[in-house]
């Protein structure tokens, strides 16, 4: 969707709504982590629905939303990071190769956190599976891991924004990015 100011829609509406809904659900989940009651569980269910839809969208969705667009060979992510630290990375309109793997890691850690939340004591399936407290440990571990990944993710967004002199947070709100001839 080319417009007069040379920007195109990279992130379609669902990708943007998914992203910020996940952020909101994640904050709610942390804020209610010590409560055994509904809001924390609701946030968990919502996260699972969000990710379910995102997985479907990753197969049938728009160009930059597809896994095939941003899940690349790990060596490409490493090459990208080398170029980044050398200060001359290529600019990708969609996710860069390292960012793509970050999306995969974030999705997996959040899926792990939400599913183990169901299995742990107090979870809806907690009484029906073996393991008990172990699931609670994994649940908390996965939540901690996702927080760590988010810190790295946001750092990557800041670094990329600085290197390419663009506001990637605004792009995730408007969906639009400026297209340049040297883009990948």
């Amino acid at each position: 969707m080319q417009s007069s100011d040379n920007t195109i829609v990279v992130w379609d509406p669902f990708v943007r709504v998914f992203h910020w809904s996940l952020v909101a659900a994640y904050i709610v989940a942390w804020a209610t982590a010590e409560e055994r009651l509904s809001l924390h569980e609701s946030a968990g269910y919502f996260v699972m629905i969000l990710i379910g839809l995102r997985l479907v969208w990753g197969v049938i969705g728009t160009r930059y939303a597809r896994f095939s667009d941003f899940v690349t060979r790990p060596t490409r992510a490493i090459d990208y990071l080398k170029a980044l630290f050398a200060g001359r990375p290529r600019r990708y309109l969609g996710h860069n190769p390292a960012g793509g793997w970050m999306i995969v890691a974030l999705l997996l850690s959040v899926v792990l956190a939400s599913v183990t939340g169901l299995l742990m004591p107090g979870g809806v399936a907690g009484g029906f599976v073996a393991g008990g407290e172990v699931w609670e440990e994994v649940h908390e571990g996965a939540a901690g891991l996702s927080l760590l990944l988010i810190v790295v993710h946001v750092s990557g967004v800041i670094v990329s924004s600085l290197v390419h002199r663009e506001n990637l947070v605004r792009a995730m709100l408007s969906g639009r990015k400026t297209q340049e001839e040297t883009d990948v």
Partner: protein
Amino acid sequence: MSEKTGMRLSWLFVTLVSLSAVLVFLGGVPAGASDDHDRVRDHRRGGDIVPLAQLLNRNELAGSRIIEAELEDEHGKLVYELELLGEDGRVYKRYFDARTGEPSADVRDD
């Protein structure tokens, strides 16, 4: 898939997100069900209260029939309120501290 179709489908997915948010956050309690049992269940899981069954074995309840059992929050103190039909045919209430399962003397029915 054309760009137009992609955007339409994307908005459809946005609608699905909105619907599930409403369903999950507002529709959490099935119609007709109260959240009382959730509250009791959560207190039980958290180990805040003793099981009701533990009270029913108490000697002072021998011979009485339980008509109604409630878990009440009396100014932050969790109390089991039992309505009993005594051997004398009278209905009366008994209160137990839900944390300990011991009779609670300081709670009186209004």
